């Protein structure tokens, strides 16, 4: 501890998480060791849509090592509830979602039965002994066909595949479209994606009958919410359920959910307790039965004046919900509606959304969650306007940005953007990219017959989710700061980081605040038995909301410490006590934090009314979302002979407010861009007409590899926000939101000589090649 040291905040501090991870000593769910562990294998549907005629489990039950087999009848008998959806829309038709299929299977991979055995090998072997008879039905796969009369119904009892309709609108759109100089229309597909965190889902459950205590170790982003949901489904008191998110190997929204398997494992644990039961998804299971992302089909229409000013936007879209509405699914596309105006002053807007059930895995939040769809629509639309009016797309953006002085800025969709300077971020990105020079290079490349394209995307995203009014289970976050008797600092956060690095950035905050060394601080998270209630990590909220809670808790604990210091140092009041570099000063005397912590715990001499101990908890309720923004510039070269797209350069200027640790922010930006790059170039969850998942393994679903990625050139602007006292906005999803349109705009720009206005993602080389063929010689 040294008073003179540089603050940790703002520095590229190496992560405190890493020593365990780089030595292979961390504990993901599958790494936890248990005595008497039982293993679960799940029998899944190989049909997209079929009636279950019979299911014969006798051979599986009597197989070597098999301990238990359950079907939906067992769940019904035990009165186990449905897999819940926490984001039901007004008037939504919601089907029963049993954790195991009853009567019918509705997607490939739907759980039908669970087998427990003494080893994972025995459990897997027993799956092959299950004989069943299915009566296959036609599947509802295509979104538009699923809404058409006569479509096979995913849930007959609902009488339709249409789950809900939702709209958001403002302004006189009809008048705007009537008076506009130009109206642009484009059908745009935002394809289904498969999140693929490198650690597949998995969980271990153990029930101790004596203690009547259930513990679920699960790879999740939201342990507290899982606990609440699990207790409700099982009919257990919440305080008899403990949920632990141990080391979590990536989530990206896929683990911002509550799954049938988490219920099943808990049910099995209660049948077999005290023996623990484990299930770890194979990658194939993770592909088939972990939520997918995106899956939105839409028609975007824009009305612009002759100078390229955007007057109005109309967007009609269909959201593919899959077979069942998972935890937050219906709410995801509503974020698209809220963010549809993007960075622009738009007079009028309307989005009409229809949610549809299909015989596919459910969709739900995937990195960006509804916002990439919005950004993609508006950023494609801006380029269409530029193309139509023969204006530079950069100029069209500039003409439509609100000025920095117009913030807080109220959008056409009813949001209030906290702060921003879109022009500054764009100008910085253009300068970094050398935009004018790139345009010149593009011209000379075209003369040589080379297809160079430059794409720009300006985005704004909604982060720091969020005010509790906006989230079903609350949008606040909590932190506890506990100064141990030795003066070591324990931080308990309700956020549940899984790669983002808050063990480090929160320790930076705490160490600076308390004047300790970084090593003196431990940040704990993810265990409902250890951490006070929390909401979790998603929606780029952990630092902006959870970090702010921590900041307040630190303030509280220091305030308390000062009261004791005043008492011990003989100062008149806490206000008369100075605190710097971990030392309390008053009356020319000093006390270290450690000395004070010891005194607070030993409690030999305390001021009147002072509670022994030294800890504080704070729950922070944000007053608004934050709205980070930025501009990305992408340069591509398209091989005119093969349609192959090569990203030549990629420049990103992001404004995520104040940066606690630039190293971590860079990492988030890079990773986010590459997930967008994956969507733009390769990734697509493909179901065939019969509802079979064609891209069911890494053999057919391509994640970007190192050689697919360019070296990213990143920079930042920093516009303060008053939404939280730290001034942080969030950065976890920025890259994913900003990058897809930059890449697609660049490719469309490269193909401009062939008259191409739009290409749907992913930009498979064959698709590009065909456009070049169709466009003829250019």
């Amino acid at each position, binding site marked *: 501890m040294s008073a003179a040291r540089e603050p940790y905040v703002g520095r590229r501090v*190496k992560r405190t998480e890493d020593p365990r991870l780089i030595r292979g000593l961390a504990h993901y769910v599958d790494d936890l060791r248990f005595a008497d562990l039982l293993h679960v294998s799940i029998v899944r549907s190989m049909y997209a849509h079929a009636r279950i005629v019979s299911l014969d489990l006798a051979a599986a039950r009597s197989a070597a090592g098999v301990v238990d087999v359950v079907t939906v009848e067992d769940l019904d008998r035990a009165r186990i509830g449905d897999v819940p959806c926490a984001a039901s829309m007004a008037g939504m038709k919601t089907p029963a979602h049993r954790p195991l299929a009853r009567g019918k299977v509705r997607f490939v991979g739907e759980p039908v039965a669970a087998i427990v055995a003494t080893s994972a090998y025995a459990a897997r072997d027993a799956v092959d002994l299950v004989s069943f008879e299915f009566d296959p039905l036609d599947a509802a796969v295509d979104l538009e066909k699923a809404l058409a009369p006569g479509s096979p119904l995913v849930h007959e009892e609902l009488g339709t595949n249409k789950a809900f309709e939702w709209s958001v609108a403002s302004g006189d759109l009809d008048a705007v479209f009537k008076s506009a100089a130009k109206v642009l229309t484009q059908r745009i597909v935002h394809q289904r994606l498969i999140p693929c965190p*490198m650690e597949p889902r998995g969980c271990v459950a153990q029930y101790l009958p004596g203690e009547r205590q259930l513990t679920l170790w699960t790879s999740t982003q939201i342990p507290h919410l899982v606990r609440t949901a699990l207790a409700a489904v099982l009919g257990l008191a919440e305080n008899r359920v403990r949920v632990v998110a141990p080391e979590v190997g990536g989530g990206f929204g896929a683990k911002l959910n509550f799954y049938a398997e988490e219920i099943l494992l808990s049910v099995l644990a209660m049948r077999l307790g005290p023996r623990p039961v484990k299930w770890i998804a194979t*990658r194939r299971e993770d592909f088939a039965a972990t939520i997918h992302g995106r899956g939105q089909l839409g028609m975007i229409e824009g009305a612009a004046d002759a100078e390229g000013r955007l007057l109005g936007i109309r967007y009609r879209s269909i959201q593919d919900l899959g077979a069942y509405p998972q935890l937050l699914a219906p709410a995801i596309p509503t974020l698209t509606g809220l963010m549809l105006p993007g960075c622009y002053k738009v007079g009028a807007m309307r989005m009409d959304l229809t949610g549809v059930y299909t015989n596919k895995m459910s969709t739900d939040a995937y990195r960006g969650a509804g916002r990439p769809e919005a950004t993609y629509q508006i950023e494609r639309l801006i380029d269409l306007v530029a193309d139509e009016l023969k204006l530079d797309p950069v100029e069209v953006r500039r003409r439509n940005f609100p000025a920095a002085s117009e913030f807080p800025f109220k959008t056409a969709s009813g949001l209030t953007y906290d702060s921003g300077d879109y022009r500054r971020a764009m100008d910085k990105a253009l300068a970094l990219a050398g935009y004018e020079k790139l345009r010149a290079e593009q011209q000379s490349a075209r003369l040589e017959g080379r297809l160079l394209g430059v794409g720009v995307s300006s985005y704004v995203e909604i982060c720091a989710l969020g005010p509790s009014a906006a989230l079903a289970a609350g949008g606040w976050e909590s932190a506890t700061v506990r100064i141990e008797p030795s003066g070591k600092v324990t931080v308990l956060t309700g956020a549940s980081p899984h790669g983002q690095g808050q063990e480090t950035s929160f320790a930076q905050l705490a160490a600076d605040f308390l004047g300790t060394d970084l090593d003196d601080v431990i940040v704990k998270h993810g265990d409902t038995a250890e951490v006070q209630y929390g909401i979790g990590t998603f929606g780029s909220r952990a630092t902006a909301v959870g970090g702010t809670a921590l900041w307040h808790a630190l303030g509280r604990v220091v305030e308390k410490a000062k009261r004791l210091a005043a008492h011990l140092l003989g100062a008149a009041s806490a206000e008369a006590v100075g605190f710097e570099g971990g030392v309390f000063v008053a009356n020319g005397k000093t006390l270290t934090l450690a000395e004070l912590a010891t005194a607070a715990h030993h409690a030999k001499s305390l001021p009147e009314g002072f509670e022994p101990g030294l800890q504080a908890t704070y729950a922070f309720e944000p007053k608004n979302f934050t709205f980070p923004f930025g501009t990305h510039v992408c340069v591509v070269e398209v091989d005119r002979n093969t349609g192959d797209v090569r990203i030549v350069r990629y420049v990103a200027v992001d404004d995520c407010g104040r940066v606690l640790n630039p190293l971590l922010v860079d990492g988030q930006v890079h990773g986010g861009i590459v997930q967008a790059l994956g969507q733009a170039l390769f990734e697509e969850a493909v179901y065939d007409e019969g509802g079979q998942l064609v891209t069911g393994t890494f053999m057919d679903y391509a994640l970007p590899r190192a050689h697919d990625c360019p070296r990213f050139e990143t920079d930042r602007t920093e516009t303060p926000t008053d939404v939280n006292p730290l001034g942080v906005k969030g950065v976890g999803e920025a890259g994913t939101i900003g990058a897809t349109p930059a890449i697609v705009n660049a490719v469309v720009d490269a193909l401009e000589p062939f008259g191409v206005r739009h290409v749907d993602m992913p930009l498979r080389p064959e698709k590009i090649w065909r456009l070049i063929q169709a466009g003829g010689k250019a």
Partner: protein
Amino acid sequence: MKLAVTVNEKAHEHEVEPRLLLVHYLREVLGLTGTHVGCETTLCGACTVLLDGVPVKACTVLAIQADGAKVVTIEGLEKDGVLDAMQQGFWECHGLQCGFCTPGMILAARDLLDRNPHPTEDQVRGGLDGNLCRCTGYQHIVDAVLHAAKKRGASAAPAPSPAATAAPGAGRHA
């Protein structure tokens, strides 16, 4: 069947089923859980270990095929409390986020430098073709490998193999 194998310089003997995968032997029998299972199609590289000195995907090797061999897992890299240069590089350069791919990534990257001590950035990217990362966007991983190369260059580096300087450009197109 009887399996005798040396893992991280320690000799082990076990009776194993022929079908037992090496990755399961390491994780479940020996308790070395740093080697992760990220897929079942030999594509993600999370289970990469060194088998007789060369990186392999332990999900696609039978334990019995390692009979008589020397295996090194991520747990075996640290020597006397000192991190391997590649581990150090990953830490210094923020070459990991969730950490799940990291053990395999580190072992593959070490081998890359063993064969080519002074790779270009493109060679590093191509050389990591067998390992998927969903978090980092790879840039900091590439930095970590280049960092380790520099660190290793400062000390004695193993001799490059003849093919090293011609490591294949591994773009999707030739």
